[in-house]
Protein backbone atom coordinates (compact mmCIF):
# COMPACT_ATOMS: atom_id res chain seq x y z
CA UNK A 1 0.00 0.00 0.00
CA UNK A 2 1.21 3.55 -0.74
CA UNK A 3 1.95 5.57 2.36
CA UNK A 4 -0.96 7.92 3.03
CA UNK A 5 -0.48 11.66 2.73
CA UNK A 6 -0.17 13.39 6.07
CA UNK A 7 0.81 16.88 4.88
CA UNK A 8 -1.42 19.77 5.84
CA UNK A 9 -1.36 23.49 5.18
CA UNK A 10 -1.89 26.00 8.00
CA UNK A 11 -2.30 29.45 6.51
CA UNK A 12 0.48 28.89 3.99
CA UNK A 13 2.66 27.03 6.48
CA UNK A 14 3.24 23.62 4.96
CA UNK A 15 3.58 20.86 7.56
CA UNK A 16 4.71 17.37 6.59
CA UNK A 17 2.17 16.08 9.06
CA UNK A 18 -0.40 17.64 11.37
CA UNK A 19 1.42 16.85 14.60
CA UNK A 20 3.05 19.61 16.61
CA UNK A 21 4.23 19.92 20.18
CA UNK A 22 2.37 22.18 22.61
CA UNK A 23 4.24 25.20 23.91
CA UNK A 24 5.83 24.74 27.32
CA UNK A 25 5.82 20.98 27.13
CA UNK A 26 8.71 20.49 24.74
CA UNK A 27 11.27 22.96 26.03
CA UNK A 28 13.22 24.36 23.08
CA UNK A 29 13.23 21.00 21.34
CA UNK A 30 16.74 19.94 22.30
CA UNK A 31 15.53 18.21 25.47
CA UNK A 32 13.74 15.65 23.30
CA UNK A 33 16.37 15.12 20.63
CA UNK A 34 17.76 12.25 22.71
CA UNK A 35 14.47 10.41 22.48
CA UNK A 36 13.49 10.55 18.82
CA UNK A 37 14.36 12.17 15.51
CA UNK A 38 12.78 15.62 15.59
CA UNK A 39 12.40 15.41 11.82
CA UNK A 40 9.39 13.21 12.51
CA UNK A 41 7.28 16.18 13.59
CA UNK A 42 5.16 18.57 11.58
CA UNK A 43 6.22 21.45 13.77
CA UNK A 44 7.89 22.24 17.07
CA UNK A 45 6.29 24.92 19.17
CA UNK A 46 8.76 26.25 21.71
CA UNK A 47 8.23 27.41 25.29
CA UNK A 48 6.59 30.85 25.48
CA UNK A 49 9.05 33.71 24.97
CA UNK A 50 9.10 37.30 26.16
CA UNK A 51 11.35 40.18 25.21
CA UNK A 52 13.39 39.87 28.39
CA UNK A 53 14.02 36.67 30.36
CA UNK A 54 11.58 35.73 33.14
CA UNK A 55 12.40 33.90 36.32
CA UNK A 56 8.93 32.46 36.75
CA UNK A 57 7.04 31.41 39.88
CA UNK A 58 8.30 29.97 43.15
CA UNK A 59 7.89 26.22 43.76
CA UNK A 60 5.96 23.94 43.99
CA UNK A 61 5.05 24.72 40.43
CA UNK A 62 3.32 21.49 39.52
CA UNK A 63 0.93 19.08 41.14
CA UNK A 64 -0.70 16.00 39.76
CA UNK A 65 -4.50 15.77 39.69
CA UNK A 66 -6.79 12.92 38.57
CA UNK A 67 -5.74 12.25 34.96
CA UNK A 68 -4.19 15.67 34.75
CA UNK A 69 -1.74 18.12 36.22
CA UNK A 70 -1.73 21.75 37.27
CA UNK A 71 1.22 23.90 36.37
CA UNK A 72 2.17 27.39 37.46
CA UNK A 73 5.56 27.74 35.82
CA UNK A 74 4.94 31.44 35.53
CA UNK A 75 6.24 31.70 32.00
CA UNK A 76 9.90 31.27 32.97
CA UNK A 77 11.93 31.70 29.79
CA UNK A 78 15.30 32.75 28.50
CA UNK A 79 14.04 35.71 26.48
CA UNK A 80 13.83 36.18 22.72
CA UNK A 81 17.47 37.23 22.30
CA UNK A 82 18.98 34.17 23.94
CA UNK A 83 16.46 31.97 22.16
CA UNK A 84 17.53 33.29 18.79
CA UNK A 85 21.23 33.12 19.60
CA UNK A 86 21.43 29.85 21.49
CA UNK A 87 18.43 27.68 20.69
CA UNK A 88 17.37 28.49 17.16
CA UNK A 89 20.63 27.30 15.50
CA UNK A 90 19.99 23.84 16.91
CA UNK A 91 16.40 23.80 15.64
CA UNK A 92 17.44 24.96 12.16
CA UNK A 93 19.14 21.59 11.65
CA UNK A 94 15.79 19.87 11.32
CA UNK A 95 13.38 19.72 8.45
CA UNK A 96 10.59 20.58 10.86
CA UNK A 97 8.79 23.89 11.12
CA UNK A 98 9.55 26.01 14.16
CA UNK A 99 6.73 27.99 15.71
CA UNK A 100 7.65 30.56 18.34
CA UNK A 101 5.12 30.94 21.13
CA UNK A 102 5.34 34.39 22.76
CA UNK A 103 3.63 36.76 25.15
CA UNK A 104 3.92 40.17 26.75
CA UNK A 105 2.68 42.29 29.61
CA UNK A 106 1.39 45.01 27.34
CA UNK A 107 0.27 45.45 23.76
CA UNK A 108 3.56 47.06 22.90
CA UNK A 109 5.51 44.12 24.26
CA UNK A 110 3.48 41.67 22.19
CA UNK A 111 4.13 43.70 19.03
CA UNK A 112 7.82 44.13 19.78
CA UNK A 113 8.26 40.45 20.59
CA UNK A 114 6.59 39.47 17.31
CA UNK A 115 8.83 41.86 15.42
CA UNK A 116 12.01 40.47 16.97
CA UNK A 117 11.00 36.89 16.24
CA UNK A 118 9.98 37.67 12.66
CA UNK A 119 13.46 38.81 11.84
CA UNK A 120 15.05 35.58 13.06
CA UNK A 121 16.05 32.97 10.51
CA UNK A 122 14.32 29.69 11.09
CA UNK A 123 11.15 30.88 12.80
CA UNK A 124 8.32 29.82 10.49
CA UNK A 125 5.27 31.03 12.35
CA UNK A 126 4.27 32.77 15.57
CA UNK A 127 1.84 31.64 18.23
CA UNK A 128 0.49 34.36 20.50
CA UNK A 129 -0.27 33.23 24.03
CA UNK A 130 -2.99 35.65 25.11
CA UNK A 131 -3.77 33.93 28.42
CA UNK A 132 -1.69 36.54 30.22
CA UNK A 133 -2.83 39.57 32.17
CA UNK A 134 -2.42 43.07 30.76
CA UNK A 135 -0.25 44.83 33.31
CA UNK A 136 -1.06 48.29 32.00
CA UNK A 137 -4.82 47.93 31.98
CA UNK A 138 -5.80 46.53 35.34
CA UNK A 139 -4.50 43.00 34.86
CA UNK A 140 -7.36 41.99 32.59
CA UNK A 141 -6.39 38.75 30.89
CA UNK A 142 -5.94 39.57 27.18
CA UNK A 143 -7.58 36.39 26.00
CA UNK A 144 -10.75 36.55 28.06
CA UNK A 145 -11.79 40.12 27.33
CA UNK A 146 -13.09 40.73 23.77
CA UNK A 147 -11.95 44.36 23.49
CA UNK A 148 -8.47 43.83 24.90
CA UNK A 149 -8.06 40.75 22.77
CA UNK A 150 -9.08 42.51 19.58
CA UNK A 151 -6.63 45.33 20.28
CA UNK A 152 -3.59 43.19 21.09
CA UNK A 153 -4.10 40.99 18.03
CA UNK A 154 -4.72 43.87 15.62
CA UNK A 155 -1.58 45.67 16.73
CA UNK A 156 0.60 42.55 16.77
CA UNK A 157 -0.72 41.57 13.35
CA UNK A 158 0.84 44.69 11.89
CA UNK A 159 4.26 43.89 13.29
CA UNK A 160 4.80 40.53 11.56
CA UNK A 161 4.47 39.03 8.10
CA UNK A 162 4.77 35.48 9.44
CA UNK A 163 1.66 33.32 9.86
CA UNK A 164 0.15 34.49 13.14
CA UNK A 165 -1.57 31.87 15.28
CA UNK A 166 -3.62 33.06 18.24
CA UNK A 167 -3.85 30.63 21.12
CA UNK A 168 -7.24 30.79 22.78
CA UNK A 169 -7.99 30.59 26.48
CA UNK A 170 -10.66 28.10 27.58
CA UNK A 171 -11.57 30.23 30.59
CA UNK A 172 -14.34 31.97 28.68
CA UNK A 173 -18.06 31.55 28.13
CA UNK A 174 -18.06 31.26 24.36
CA UNK A 175 -14.76 30.25 22.81
CA UNK A 176 -16.26 30.32 19.30
CA UNK A 177 -16.97 34.00 19.70
CA UNK A 178 -13.42 34.64 20.91
CA UNK A 179 -12.08 32.78 17.88
CA UNK A 180 -14.19 34.98 15.63
CA UNK A 181 -12.68 38.07 17.26
CA UNK A 182 -9.20 36.69 16.60
CA UNK A 183 -10.11 35.99 12.99
CA UNK A 184 -11.46 39.46 12.46
CA UNK A 185 -8.45 41.03 14.13
CA UNK A 186 -6.18 39.40 11.56
CA UNK A 187 -5.13 36.03 12.96
CA UNK A 188 -4.11 33.53 10.28
CA UNK A 189 -5.04 30.59 12.49
CA UNK A 190 -6.15 29.87 16.03
CA UNK A 191 -5.01 27.18 18.43
CA UNK A 192 -7.03 25.82 21.35
CA UNK A 193 -7.07 25.08 24.16
CA UNK A 194 -4.69 26.56 26.65
CA UNK A 195 -4.93 25.23 30.22
CA UNK A 196 -8.04 25.59 32.39
CA UNK A 197 -7.43 27.38 35.67
CA UNK A 198 -7.59 25.09 38.71
CA UNK A 199 -6.47 24.73 42.31
CA UNK A 200 -5.52 21.92 44.68
CA UNK A 201 -5.56 22.45 48.44
CA UNK A 202 -3.39 20.64 50.96
CA UNK A 203 -6.03 20.00 53.62
CA UNK A 204 -3.58 19.43 56.47
CA UNK A 205 -1.72 22.67 55.82
CA UNK A 206 -4.88 24.55 54.77
CA UNK A 207 -2.83 25.93 51.89
CA UNK A 208 -2.88 25.64 48.12
CA UNK A 209 -0.30 23.08 47.00
CA UNK A 210 1.07 25.45 44.35
CA UNK A 211 3.04 28.43 45.56
CA UNK A 212 1.10 30.47 43.00
CA UNK A 213 -2.19 29.16 44.49
CA UNK A 214 -3.80 28.44 41.12
CA UNK A 215 -2.36 26.75 38.05
CA UNK A 216 -3.38 25.57 34.61
CA UNK A 217 -5.00 22.16 34.23
CA UNK A 218 -3.75 20.02 31.35
CA UNK A 219 -3.72 16.36 30.37
CA UNK A 220 -6.38 13.74 29.59
CA UNK A 221 -8.74 15.14 32.24
CA UNK A 222 -9.47 18.17 30.04
CA UNK A 223 -9.71 16.31 26.73
CA UNK A 224 -13.52 16.15 26.51
CA UNK A 225 -13.71 19.89 27.20
CA UNK A 226 -10.96 20.58 24.66
CA UNK A 227 -12.64 18.50 21.94
CA UNK A 228 -15.93 20.29 22.51
CA UNK A 229 -14.26 23.73 22.42
CA UNK A 230 -12.22 22.96 19.30
CA UNK A 231 -15.40 21.77 17.62
CA UNK A 232 -17.11 25.06 18.54
CA UNK A 233 -14.12 27.05 17.26
CA UNK A 234 -14.09 25.13 13.97
CA UNK A 235 -17.72 25.97 13.41
CA UNK A 236 -17.18 29.64 14.24
CA UNK A 237 -14.24 30.54 12.00
CA UNK A 238 -12.92 29.93 8.49
CA UNK A 239 -9.22 30.14 9.35
CA UNK A 240 -7.41 26.90 10.25
CA UNK A 241 -7.63 25.59 13.78
CA UNK A 242 -4.94 23.74 15.75
CA UNK A 243 -6.44 21.45 18.38
CA UNK A 244 -4.93 20.36 21.67
CA UNK A 245 -5.76 19.33 25.21
CA UNK A 246 -5.03 15.90 26.66
CA UNK A 247 -3.84 14.18 23.49
CA UNK A 248 -2.03 10.98 24.54
CA UNK A 249 -2.16 8.98 21.31
CA UNK A 250 -3.31 8.97 17.70
CA UNK A 251 -6.90 8.16 18.56
CA UNK A 252 -7.11 11.22 20.80
CA UNK A 253 -5.53 13.33 18.05
CA UNK A 254 -8.11 12.02 15.59
CA UNK A 255 -10.94 13.30 17.75
CA UNK A 256 -9.64 16.84 17.20
CA UNK A 257 -9.01 16.33 13.49
CA UNK A 258 -12.47 14.88 12.94
CA UNK A 259 -13.94 17.80 14.88
CA UNK A 260 -12.31 20.05 12.30
CA UNK A 261 -8.79 20.88 13.49
CA UNK A 262 -6.23 21.10 10.67
CA UNK A 263 -3.41 20.14 13.03
CA UNK A 264 -2.97 19.03 16.61
CA UNK A 265 -0.46 19.63 19.39
CA UNK A 266 0.77 17.09 21.91
CA UNK A 267 1.41 18.58 25.34
CA UNK A 268 1.45 16.90 28.73
CA UNK A 269 1.85 13.52 27.03
CA UNK A 270 5.47 14.43 26.23
CA UNK A 271 6.21 14.29 29.96
CA UNK A 272 4.90 10.77 30.32
CA UNK A 273 6.24 9.42 27.07
CA UNK A 274 9.12 11.44 25.58
CA UNK A 275 8.33 10.12 22.10
CA UNK A 276 4.58 10.70 22.38
CA UNK A 277 4.43 13.21 19.52
CA UNK A 278 6.33 10.92 17.12
CA UNK A 279 4.12 8.01 18.22
CA UNK A 280 1.04 10.04 17.31
CA UNK A 281 2.43 10.54 13.78
CA UNK A 282 2.93 6.78 13.43
CA UNK A 283 -0.51 6.09 14.85
CA UNK A 284 -2.15 8.44 12.37
CA UNK A 285 -0.47 6.61 9.49
CA UNK A 286 -1.70 3.27 10.76
CA UNK A 287 -5.22 4.59 11.22
CA UNK A 288 -5.37 5.93 7.66
CA UNK A 289 -4.05 2.66 6.25
CA UNK A 290 -6.49 0.70 8.36
CA UNK A 291 -9.41 2.81 7.21
CA UNK A 292 -8.23 2.86 3.60
CA UNK A 293 -7.99 6.63 3.53
CA UNK A 294 -5.15 8.01 1.45
CA UNK A 295 -5.01 11.57 2.73
CA UNK A 296 -5.37 12.95 6.25
CA UNK A 297 -7.22 15.93 4.78
CA UNK A 298 -10.09 13.60 4.00
CA UNK A 299 -10.49 12.98 7.73
CA UNK A 300 -10.43 16.60 8.86
CA UNK A 301 -13.83 18.00 9.76
CA UNK A 302 -15.73 14.81 8.93
CA UNK A 303 -17.77 14.73 12.13
CA UNK A 304 -21.27 13.57 11.39
Amino acid at each position, binding site marked *: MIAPNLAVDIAGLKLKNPVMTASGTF*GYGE*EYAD*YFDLNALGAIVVKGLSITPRTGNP*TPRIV*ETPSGMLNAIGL*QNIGVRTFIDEKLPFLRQFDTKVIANFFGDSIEEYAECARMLSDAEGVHALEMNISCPNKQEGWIVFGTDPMTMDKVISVTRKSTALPLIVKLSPNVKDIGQMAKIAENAGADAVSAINTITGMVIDVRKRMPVLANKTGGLSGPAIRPVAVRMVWEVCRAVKIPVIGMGGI*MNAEDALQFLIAGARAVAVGTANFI*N*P*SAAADVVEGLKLFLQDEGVSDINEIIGTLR
Partner: protein
Amino acid sequence: MRRHFKAKVIDNNFAAESFKLITLSPASEVSVPLPGQFYMLESGRSTDPLLKRPFSIFRLNDGCLQFLYRVRGKGTTSIAGFNRGDFINVVGPLGKAYPDPEGPFIAVAGGVGIASLYSLLEKKRGKAMLFYGARNVRELICFEEASKLSAKAFSTTDDGSSGVKGLVTDKLSEFIKNEGRSMPVYACGPHPMLKKVAEIAKHNNLKCYVSLEEHMACGIGACLGCVVKSKSSAVEYEYKRVCKEGPVFDADEVLW
Protein backbone atom coordinates in the same frame (compact mmCIF):
# COMPACT_ATOMS: atom_id res chain seq x y z
CA MET B 1 21.72 3.16 23.97
CA ARG B 2 18.14 4.03 24.74
CA ARG B 3 17.20 6.33 27.56
CA HIS B 4 13.53 5.49 27.17
CA PHE B 5 12.91 1.79 27.35
CA LYS B 6 10.73 -1.03 28.56
CA ALA B 7 11.94 -3.10 31.46
CA LYS B 8 10.72 -6.35 32.92
CA VAL B 9 9.92 -6.51 36.61
CA ILE B 10 12.11 -9.23 38.11
CA ASP B 11 11.12 -8.61 41.69
CA ASN B 12 9.13 -6.07 43.66
CA ASN B 13 9.28 -7.00 47.31
CA PHE B 14 9.09 -5.32 50.65
CA ALA B 15 12.49 -4.31 52.01
CA ALA B 16 10.83 -3.13 55.21
CA GLU B 17 7.41 -1.96 56.29
CA SER B 18 6.31 0.52 53.57
CA PHE B 19 9.63 0.30 51.71
CA LYS B 20 9.95 -1.78 48.58
CA LEU B 21 12.81 -2.79 46.35
CA ILE B 22 12.01 -3.15 42.67
CA THR B 23 14.39 -4.92 40.30
CA LEU B 24 14.07 -4.20 36.59
CA SER B 25 15.63 -5.92 33.64
CA PRO B 26 15.78 -3.56 30.64
CA ALA B 27 14.45 -5.07 27.43
CA SER B 28 17.05 -3.24 25.32
CA GLU B 29 20.63 -2.11 25.75
CA VAL B 30 20.80 0.81 28.12
CA SER B 31 23.39 3.19 29.57
CA VAL B 32 25.14 2.45 32.84
CA PRO B 33 23.96 4.86 35.53
CA LEU B 34 26.32 6.74 37.82
CA PRO B 35 25.75 7.15 41.55
CA GLY B 36 23.34 10.04 42.15
CA GLN B 37 21.52 9.75 38.85
CA PHE B 38 17.85 8.91 38.72
CA TYR B 39 15.14 7.36 36.55
CA MET B 40 11.50 8.15 35.86
CA LEU B 41 9.38 5.06 36.41
CA GLU B 42 5.94 4.47 34.97
CA SER B 43 3.33 4.89 37.68
CA GLY B 44 0.67 2.62 36.23
CA ARG B 45 -1.30 1.65 33.18
CA SER B 46 -4.01 4.26 33.26
CA THR B 47 -3.99 8.05 33.24
CA ASP B 48 -4.44 8.15 37.02
CA PRO B 49 -1.74 8.31 38.31
CA LEU B 50 -0.58 10.17 35.24
CA LEU B 51 3.03 11.22 35.58
CA LYS B 52 6.08 9.03 35.93
CA ARG B 53 7.82 9.20 39.32
CA PRO B 54 11.53 9.95 39.94
CA PHE B 55 13.73 7.47 41.83
CA SER B 56 17.48 7.39 42.43
CA ILE B 57 19.33 4.41 41.12
CA PHE B 58 19.91 2.25 44.18
CA ARG B 59 22.05 -0.49 42.72
CA LEU B 60 23.04 -2.00 39.45
CA ASN B 61 22.86 -5.72 39.97
CA ASP B 62 23.62 -8.30 37.33
CA GLY B 63 22.52 -5.98 34.54
CA CYS B 64 19.36 -5.14 36.44
CA LEU B 65 18.37 -1.74 37.77
CA GLN B 66 17.29 -1.64 41.39
CA PHE B 67 15.27 1.06 43.09
CA LEU B 68 14.51 1.34 46.77
CA TYR B 69 11.33 3.29 47.36
CA ARG B 70 8.97 4.33 50.04
CA VAL B 71 5.29 3.63 49.37
CA ARG B 72 3.70 7.02 50.00
CA GLY B 73 0.98 8.34 47.74
CA LYS B 74 -0.88 7.10 44.73
CA GLY B 75 2.11 6.87 42.40
CA THR B 76 4.24 4.70 44.63
CA THR B 77 1.19 2.65 45.64
CA SER B 78 0.59 1.93 42.01
CA ILE B 79 4.25 1.05 41.42
CA ALA B 80 4.08 -1.24 44.45
CA GLY B 81 1.36 -3.13 42.57
CA PHE B 82 3.59 -4.19 39.68
CA ASN B 83 4.19 -7.90 39.60
CA ARG B 84 7.07 -10.03 38.55
CA GLY B 85 6.90 -10.41 34.78
CA ASP B 86 5.14 -7.10 34.13
CA PHE B 87 6.78 -4.67 31.72
CA ILE B 88 7.05 -1.03 32.66
CA ASN B 89 8.23 2.08 30.86
CA VAL B 90 11.38 3.73 32.16
CA VAL B 91 13.30 6.88 31.28
CA GLY B 92 16.90 7.28 32.41
CA PRO B 93 19.58 7.55 33.61
CA LEU B 94 18.88 11.23 34.15
CA GLY B 95 20.55 14.19 35.80
CA LYS B 96 23.99 14.89 37.20
CA ALA B 97 25.81 12.26 39.23
CA TYR B 98 27.84 12.82 42.39
CA PRO B 99 31.34 14.02 41.47
CA ASP B 100 33.74 11.18 42.23
CA PRO B 101 35.30 11.65 45.65
CA GLU B 102 39.05 11.22 45.33
CA GLY B 103 39.75 9.94 48.80
CA PRO B 104 37.72 9.29 51.91
CA PHE B 105 34.42 11.14 52.15
CA ILE B 106 31.47 11.69 54.43
CA ALA B 107 28.09 10.35 53.35
CA VAL B 108 24.95 11.59 55.10
CA ALA B 109 21.71 9.76 54.44
CA GLY B 110 18.31 10.72 55.80
CA GLY B 111 15.70 7.98 55.51
CA VAL B 112 15.21 6.69 51.99
CA GLY B 113 18.00 9.10 50.94
CA ILE B 114 20.23 6.05 51.39
CA ALA B 115 18.92 4.92 47.98
CA SER B 116 20.84 7.70 46.28
CA LEU B 117 24.10 7.17 48.20
CA TYR B 118 24.26 3.38 48.29
CA SER B 119 25.84 2.92 44.89
CA LEU B 120 28.43 5.56 45.73
CA LEU B 121 29.37 3.55 48.83
CA GLU B 122 29.63 0.45 46.66
CA LYS B 123 31.78 2.20 44.10
CA LYS B 124 34.09 3.72 46.72
CA ARG B 125 34.19 0.70 48.94
CA GLY B 126 35.72 1.35 52.36
CA LYS B 127 36.15 5.08 51.76
CA ALA B 128 33.04 6.50 53.36
CA MET B 129 32.24 7.71 56.84
CA LEU B 130 28.53 6.97 56.80
CA PHE B 131 25.97 8.88 58.85
CA TYR B 132 22.54 7.42 58.46
CA GLY B 133 19.48 8.73 60.25
CA ALA B 134 15.95 7.37 60.21
CA ARG B 135 12.77 7.49 62.26
CA ASN B 136 13.36 4.11 63.83
CA VAL B 137 15.28 0.90 63.37
CA ARG B 138 12.72 -0.52 60.95
CA GLU B 139 13.22 2.39 58.59
CA LEU B 140 16.99 2.14 58.80
CA ILE B 141 17.06 0.03 55.68
CA CYS B 142 20.16 -1.96 54.74
CA PHE B 143 22.24 -0.19 57.38
CA GLU B 144 24.25 -3.35 57.90
CA GLU B 145 25.14 -3.78 54.24
CA ALA B 146 25.92 -0.08 53.97
CA SER B 147 28.17 -0.27 57.05
CA LYS B 148 30.18 -3.04 55.48
CA LEU B 149 30.81 -0.86 52.46
CA SER B 150 31.98 2.04 54.66
CA ALA B 151 35.08 2.80 56.67
CA LYS B 152 32.95 3.82 59.60
CA ALA B 153 29.19 3.93 60.00
CA PHE B 154 26.94 5.65 62.50
CA SER B 155 23.22 5.43 62.78
CA THR B 156 20.77 7.69 64.54
CA THR B 157 17.05 7.24 65.03
CA ASP B 158 14.34 9.60 66.24
CA ASP B 159 13.25 7.09 68.86
CA GLY B 160 16.63 5.62 69.79
CA SER B 161 15.63 2.16 68.57
CA SER B 162 19.04 1.93 66.89
CA GLY B 163 22.24 3.92 67.21
CA VAL B 164 22.15 7.31 68.87
CA LYS B 165 18.77 8.85 69.61
CA GLY B 166 18.55 12.18 67.85
CA LEU B 167 19.39 13.95 64.64
CA VAL B 168 21.94 12.62 62.20
CA THR B 169 23.26 16.16 61.77
CA ASP B 170 24.14 16.37 65.47
CA LYS B 171 26.15 13.19 65.19
CA LEU B 172 27.83 14.59 62.07
CA SER B 173 28.76 17.87 63.82
CA GLU B 174 30.18 16.00 66.74
CA PHE B 175 32.26 13.76 64.50
CA ILE B 176 33.68 16.62 62.49
CA LYS B 177 34.44 18.55 65.65
CA ASN B 178 36.19 15.59 67.30
CA GLU B 179 38.00 14.13 64.40
CA GLY B 180 38.40 17.38 62.53
CA ARG B 181 39.04 15.71 59.23
CA SER B 182 38.79 17.45 55.94
CA MET B 183 36.67 15.35 53.67
CA PRO B 184 34.00 16.24 51.16
CA VAL B 185 30.42 15.66 52.28
CA TYR B 186 27.78 13.89 50.17
CA ALA B 187 24.22 14.09 51.40
CA CYS B 188 20.74 12.97 50.45
CA GLY B 189 17.63 13.25 52.58
CA PRO B 190 14.84 15.62 53.57
CA HIS B 191 15.32 19.28 52.76
CA PRO B 192 15.78 20.52 56.36
CA MET B 193 18.48 17.88 56.90
CA LEU B 194 20.31 18.92 53.74
CA LYS B 195 20.17 22.54 54.74
CA LYS B 196 21.70 21.69 58.10
CA VAL B 197 24.38 19.50 56.52
CA ALA B 198 25.27 22.34 54.16
CA GLU B 199 25.63 24.71 57.12
CA ILE B 200 27.85 22.28 59.00
CA ALA B 201 30.02 21.73 55.95
CA LYS B 202 30.34 25.44 55.28
CA HIS B 203 31.18 26.12 58.87
CA ASN B 204 33.94 23.52 58.71
CA ASN B 205 35.13 24.50 55.29
CA LEU B 206 34.21 21.18 53.76
CA LYS B 207 33.11 20.77 50.19
CA CYS B 208 29.50 19.60 50.15
CA TYR B 209 27.26 17.97 47.55
CA VAL B 210 23.54 17.55 48.10
CA SER B 211 20.96 15.62 46.14
CA LEU B 212 17.71 17.60 46.02
CA GLU B 213 14.10 16.65 45.42
CA GLU B 214 11.34 18.61 43.74
CA HIS B 215 7.98 17.74 42.19
CA MET B 216 8.75 16.65 38.64
CA ALA B 217 6.60 16.27 35.57
CA CYS B 218 9.06 15.39 32.80
CA GLY B 219 12.41 14.61 34.47
CA ILE B 220 14.24 15.63 31.29
CA GLY B 221 14.41 19.40 31.52
CA ALA B 222 11.40 20.39 29.45
CA CYS B 223 8.65 21.44 31.82
CA LEU B 224 10.54 23.74 34.24
CA GLY B 225 8.50 22.28 37.07
CA CYS B 226 11.37 21.10 39.25
CA VAL B 227 13.46 24.20 39.73
CA VAL B 228 15.40 25.34 42.82
CA LYS B 229 16.61 28.78 43.65
CA SER B 230 20.32 29.00 43.19
CA LYS B 231 22.94 31.70 43.41
CA SER B 232 23.72 33.76 40.37
CA SER B 233 26.39 36.34 39.80
CA ALA B 234 24.28 38.40 37.43
CA VAL B 235 20.85 38.45 39.05
CA GLU B 236 19.42 38.08 42.56
CA TYR B 237 18.83 34.38 42.04
CA GLU B 238 18.38 31.93 39.25
CA TYR B 239 16.16 28.86 38.94
CA LYS B 240 17.99 25.66 38.11
CA ARG B 241 16.30 22.43 37.11
CA VAL B 242 16.74 19.62 39.64
CA CYS B 243 16.28 17.07 36.86
CA LYS B 244 18.92 18.54 34.56
CA GLU B 245 21.42 20.74 36.44
CA GLY B 246 20.79 18.45 39.46
CA PRO B 247 19.67 16.47 41.36
CA VAL B 248 23.21 16.70 42.78
CA PHE B 249 24.23 20.30 43.47
CA ASP B 250 27.23 21.88 45.08
CA ALA B 251 25.68 23.05 48.36
CA ASP B 252 27.27 26.46 47.75
CA GLU B 253 25.22 26.98 44.63
CA VAL B 254 21.89 26.49 46.38
CA LEU B 255 19.96 29.42 47.81
CA TRP B 256 18.76 27.60 50.95
